[in-house]
């Protein structure tokens, strides 16, 4: 049940720019693996290569034993890869419940063109919303949610797919401290057999959740190790500060 | 529920019967019918295209209808006429809806008009089931008074085959133009005209050099077909075109230098009415067959043309005359039927005999469509305008030419 994610020599170019350049990445089954690095390091591109939104120029991606390099987004999703996106974008004219229901019915129901009562699916939706902190917001139209709420909903939708591999792209960006704390709890409460790979700028969160951290720099892997090893690494400090960037090391970014 | 419907219908029926009785009564009271005799009223639905490509024909038809009423004191066959105009538009979608409205909502007694054959065929069942008379003043599909015949649809115009066959017979009789190329657009009327011409021409001993069907409605440029005519070595060309296509074809026929080497013949719509002024000098010399031209030298036509010009400052066209004659035969039918229902009028039309006061010359019904003479006309310049002068006329022929 529990799967690993293995990237080998993974590359992606945009014209002359090699956004991801020969990355080897091993995410252990049931691991909590964080991906960090300065802006432009290739974190999001790497995530897209794993979800299938972008196709690799070179290298391979494996989920457990299965080579998924040539698979479409849809096929990968059906293998159990689920994701939240950096810019929260769901289904703006649907209710919060229906947003989650879309994921639940894909995972559990048969999506036929005739009505079903879906009582079980609705119960699942309510349970998830409660777990994520959106209880009572089920009948709200998605477009009316606050930014933080929308990020929560993203996570709820991703979890509703009952993924084997969960990819989180900056899950805490734009969240209030209280929301971030709730998010951390939710992730910590995830079943151990779910493998998690996440990109995050909030290092407190990273060090709280991650079992392994990979640092990307200029499209390459700079370092993979335990949180403590990464914190102590001189090379990481160099990568963040030595390239002339003036942002403080590992500071929490606020971003719209 | 249905009880209520029946009650309604009964009520309507009673109204209708009352109206019919009163009409009858006044007719009896007035003795033998005369021009001044008040026989009642008739509501006529005039179905003419007011929008779309056929709209110019609608104008000519409306003018003729108005002129007829104007010259007969607003009465047809002794009945006071109320005219309701319905816009036929360009397609049966609008045409059928207009007829439906005139029959069912405006309660018209008689319908006159209809330019498009598709619309005429499309309203056949509607008209037949409501047992009202429809006098078709243009639509020329053979089937309207052929395989799709209904006792309630009569026609004062022509059939597509009949017009073209007149030219076929004429050319065959003339001889010397063996090897004629036939071009007509790829739709029902074009096919009927093409077949009508070819049958008449070949059975008269002529030979066909080739035939082609340009796409209907979308052909702006006839060069590919003109090239074909040239390379076929034809001695003459027969064509069937109307409206914008007639203008484009005639102008391009001259632009590509064919007009001087391969004489052009056609069904009369090629050079009739508004299209002739658009063609201008390019049309000079073209010979066409038709059952009318404003140049006809007969008493009724001269009077008609003068009155028409006075009233509308325009020269009448074949479309005007067809509508004028529709009014004329309706006048006779109402006079003898003394009723406005379709059955009585249809019976009356069947007994009508020759129409001797038409601007087109004498004609009569053969079946439910005219048996009439055809004129071979040639386009000439007259003053600063152009006219179709008569150079020959044929014997009277019916539906199939």
């Amino acid at each position: 049940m529990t799967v690993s994610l293995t990237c080998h020599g993974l590359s992606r170019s945009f014209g002359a720019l090699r956004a991801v350049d020969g990355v080897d990445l091993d995410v252990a089954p049931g691991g909590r693996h964080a991906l960090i690095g300065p802006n432009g390091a290739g974190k999001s591109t790497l995530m897209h290569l794993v979800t299938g939104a972008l196709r690799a120029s070179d290298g391979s991606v494996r989920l457990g034993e299965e080579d998924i390099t040539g698979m479409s987004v849809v096929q990968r999703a059906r293998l159990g890869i689920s994701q939240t996106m950096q810019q929260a974008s769901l289904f703006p004219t649907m209710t919060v419940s229906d947003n989650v229901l879309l994921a639940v019915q894909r995972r559990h129901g048969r999506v036929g063109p005739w009505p079903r009562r879906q009582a079980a699916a609705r119960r699942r939706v309510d349970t998830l919303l409660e777990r994520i902190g959106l209880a009572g917001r089920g009948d709200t139209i998605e477009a009316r949610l606050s930014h933080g709420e929308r990020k929560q909903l993203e996570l709820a939708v991703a979890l509703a797919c009952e993924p084997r591999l969960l990819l989180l792209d900056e899950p805490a960006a734009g969240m209030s401290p209280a929301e971030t704390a709730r998010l951390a709890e939710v992730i910590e409460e995830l079943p151990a057999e779910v493998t998690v790979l996440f990109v995050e700028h909030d290092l407190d969160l990273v060090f709280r959740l991650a079992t392994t951290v990979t640092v990307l720099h200029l499209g390459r892997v700079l370092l993979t190790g335990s949180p403590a090893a990464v914190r102590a690494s001189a090379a990481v400090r160099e990568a963040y500060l030595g390239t002339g960037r003036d942002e403080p090391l590992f500071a929490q970014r606020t971003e719209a | 529920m249905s009880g209520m419907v029946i009650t309604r219908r009964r009520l309507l029926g009673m109204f209708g019967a009352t109206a019919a009785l009163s009409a009858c009564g006044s007719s009896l009271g007035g003795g033998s019918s005369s021009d001044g005799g008040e026989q009642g009223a008739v509501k006529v639905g005039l179905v003419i295209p007011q929008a779309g490509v056929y709209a110019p024909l609608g104008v000519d038809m409306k003018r003729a209808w108005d002129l007829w009423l104007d010259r007969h004191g607003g009465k047809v066959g002794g009945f006071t006429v109320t005219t309701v105009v319905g816009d036929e538009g360009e397609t049966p979608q609008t045409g059928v809806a207009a007829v439906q409205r005139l029959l069912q909502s405006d309660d018209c007694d008689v319908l006159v008009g209809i330019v498009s054959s598709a619309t005429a065929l499309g309203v056949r069942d509607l008209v037949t089931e409501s047992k009202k008379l429809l006098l078709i003043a243009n639509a020329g599909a053979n089937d309207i008074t052929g395989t799709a015949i209904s006792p309630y649809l009569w026609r004062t115009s022509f059939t597509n085959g009949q017009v073209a066959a007149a030219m076929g017979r004429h050319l065959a009789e003339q001889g010397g133009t063996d090897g004629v190329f036939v071009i007509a657009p790829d739709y029902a009327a074009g096919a009927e005209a093409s077949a009508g011409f070819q049958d008449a021409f070949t059975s008269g001993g002529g030979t066909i050099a080739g035939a082609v069907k340009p796409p209907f409605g979308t052909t702006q440029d006839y060069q590919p077909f003109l090239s074909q005519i040239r390379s076929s070595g034809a001695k003459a060309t027969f064509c069937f075109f109307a409206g914008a296509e007639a203008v484009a074809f005639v102008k391009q026929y001259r632009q590509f230098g064919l007009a001087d080497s391969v004489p052009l013949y056609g069904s009369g719509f090629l050079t009739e009415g508004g299209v002739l002024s658009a063609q201008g000098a390019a049309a000079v010399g073209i010979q066409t067959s038709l059952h009318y031209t404003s140049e006809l030298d007969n008493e009724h036509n001269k009077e008609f043309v003068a009155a028409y010009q006075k009233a509308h400052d325009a020269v009448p066209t074949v479309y005007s005359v067809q509508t004028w004659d529709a009014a004329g035969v309706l006048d006779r039918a109402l006079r003898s039927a003394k009723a406005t229902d379709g059955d009585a009028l249809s019976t009356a039309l069947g007994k009508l005999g020759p129409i001797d006061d038409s601007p087109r010359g004498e004609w009569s019904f053969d079946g439910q469509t005219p048996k009439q003479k055809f004129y071979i006309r040639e386009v000439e310049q007259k003053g600063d305008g152009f006219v179709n002068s008569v150079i020959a006329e044929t014997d009277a022929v019916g539906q199939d030419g």
Partner: protein
Amino acid sequence: MAWLDANLVSVLNGVAIGCLLFILAIGLSLVFGMMDVLNLAHGAVFLVGAYAGWVVGGTDPSWGTFLLALAVALGIGLLVGGGMSLLTEPLRDRSHLDQALLTLGIALIVAELLSMAFGNDVQAADAPPGLDGTVSLFGNAYPTYRLALIGVGAVFAVGLWLLMSRTMIGSVIRATVADRDMVSAIGIAQHRVKLAVFGAGSALAAAAGVLGVPIYGARPGLDSTVLILALVVVVIGGLGSVRGALVGALVIGQIESLGRAVLADAASFLLFGALALVLVLRPRGLFAGAVR
């Protein structure tokens, strides 16, 4: 030999018709490619130009009146196009369908206004002096005006190519086709680009109307016939590129000319048969490259 002669004329004629179609379709293609607006009023603008050519130029135009008509049509086209750009501006954030339907409404209104102003009769006019005769080609008479159209089309094509490849305006246009948001991000006001392209595209359509009068005339219903042709051209050629519009126009010119001459029996099916073929094989047109 006669067969060959006849078909050489058809090929040449296809080029002439293609040139006219190119001038007509380029505006539609650019507005479509740059602004994502399907302008269903493009045919109506052509008809406005045709009536301008007939009214200003007269049925037997001199060079003076013909050129004046061309100038008038360019002016009116610019105004109409600019107007449509402004009218679609409030719909900027709405779906493609809204904008297409708005232009359809405008097309119906414009066509109806034209028929009210100029009647429903078919109008035709001659070519200006010197071009209204015929020349002998391969032993066959051929209208001089159509040969001249090839020249005009070539001038337009070269001019537009130079504009697109050698000028600032051209690079903005190409960049807009490729990535509209990028262009606005570097500080070029999108609504200005749109106004300019809409105006210029419509002006060209109106000019095509004047140039087309000696062949097509001016009449109700011409707008929709021409719109369909222009749409087929841009779909076949691919959207938003001058090269695509040119190739599409020349291909359609040949289909309408040589194709109809050679395959006369299938003439009615040729145009849409070719379209269907392209749609199945290359749904984004023959020259859909960087275009979204």
